[in-house]
């Protein structure tokens, strides 16, 4: 029987050049991010721990420290960064070489699916056939995230933060797109349940070889609105083996209220315990990236 040549026996594709098109996408992404000094993913694994609020305030604290900061809302299906940074409703100018990002509180540059959706209640719905959407949805979402990173005209940035959706696997598409991702900050509560899930995310990030900056413990105690004394909410502090604590952010009802109004707490209440914790986390991030040490 005649031997049929295999895929690798044949010369490179001379028609569609799909691989060439994919390579061009990757090159465009690298060109765009060549002006970004440090990339940082904020990840939890667990939902409902206040990860996006931490991202917004960490970004705002870095900006307040005179860093040039951009934020990518990588939570395509539950985007909230535009609301948290007071950037909802901004229209984005498209030029041939890219899309101008929205500008939120503190001068933060932002790209989010929320800026593109038709209404407050509109979910992300793709046009493909619904019946087999599980086959193509993940690929399309990775492509959308790639475009957010590569097609946004970020200009020169010191830090680009990616706010990831819940799920211990959500770091993987980011790692595929950004193999040289600068680092990860985890967000967790002190509850056993939260730590139980976040540990899996820590494990996965270690497996992928991504540098770990540390973790922020959110809702670490309750700050009395009258006297400012911080009392416990979950008991003992969160701990992750070998992962440095960057800061413990106490729960503050005003933090949630200001978040709803698109005003990062760290900028509005700089003297508060929560703002101090965010500031401490931002300094630790800067120390990690800029001096290669932990605080």
């Amino acid at each position: 029987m005649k031997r049929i040549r295999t895929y690798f026996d044949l010369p490179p594709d001379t028609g569609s050049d799909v691989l060439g098109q994919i390579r061009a996408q990757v090159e465009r992404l690298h060109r765009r991010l060549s002006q970004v000094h440090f990339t940082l993913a904020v990840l939890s694994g667990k939902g409902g721990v206040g990860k996006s609020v931490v991202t917004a305030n960490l970004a705002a604290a870095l900006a307040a420290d005179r860093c040039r900061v951009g934020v990518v809302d990588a939570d395509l299906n539950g985007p909230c960064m535009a609301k948290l940074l007071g950037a909802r409703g901004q229209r984005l100018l498209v030029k041939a070489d890219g899309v101008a990002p929205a500008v939120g509180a503190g001068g933060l540059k932002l790209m989010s699916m929320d800026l593109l959706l038709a209404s407050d209640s509109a979910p992300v719905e793709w046009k493909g056939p619904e019946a087999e959407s599980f086959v193509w949805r993940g690929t399309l979402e990775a492509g959308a995230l790639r475009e957010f990173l590569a097609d946004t005209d970020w200009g020169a940035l010191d830090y680009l933060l990616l706010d990831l959706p819940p799920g211990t696997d959500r770091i993987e598409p980011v790692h595929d797109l950004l193999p040289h991702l600068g680092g990860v900050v985890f967000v967790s509560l002190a509850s056993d349940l939260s730590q139980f899930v976040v540990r899996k995310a820590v494990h996965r990030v270690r497996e992928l070889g991504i540098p770990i900056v540390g973790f922020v413990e959110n809702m670490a105690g309750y700050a009395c609105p009258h006297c400012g004394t911080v009392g416990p909410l979950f008991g003992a502090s969160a701990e992750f083996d070998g992962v440095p604590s960057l800061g413990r952010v106490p729960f503050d009802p005003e933090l949630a209220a200001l978040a709803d109004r698109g005003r990062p707490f760290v900028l509005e209440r700089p003297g508060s315990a929560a703002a101090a914790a965010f500031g401490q986390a931002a300094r630790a991030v800067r120390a990690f990236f800029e001096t290669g040490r932990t605080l």
Partner: protein
Amino acid sequence: MKFLCVDCDAQMRYEERELPGDGTLAVMFACPTCGRKVALLTNPMETQLVSSLGVKIGGRTVPDQPLETVRTQLGTGADGALVDEDTRRAPAWSAAAEDRLARVPGFVRGMVRRLYSEWAKERGIEEITPEVMDAARKELGLEEM
């Protein structure tokens, strides 16, 4: 994906593609030695999987547009969310061409207008008509826009 003419032991070459509008895709390949042709036919799910990669079967005919995948695939995009840069020096659009463009979803309309305008400008066309749009659409492979 590559196609081999087994009789000639020659790699078949891409010839053309068609998007009939029902979600399927037809791509024709021909053997450079014997001329035999085959068609690759994909179902809507397979077509969508290729589109999701942000690649064009047959190769790109126009450069990647910013947020192209999101703009062409998102079904719940806001009409005015993206404002395409003013193309004041672009060719004029006839009323009939504007009517046809108005049928394109607002979320992607600005991008489609720019692609047609640039195509016409490069050819010295002063007014875009439906006939010009048809010619550009075919040449640029913008069947899905």
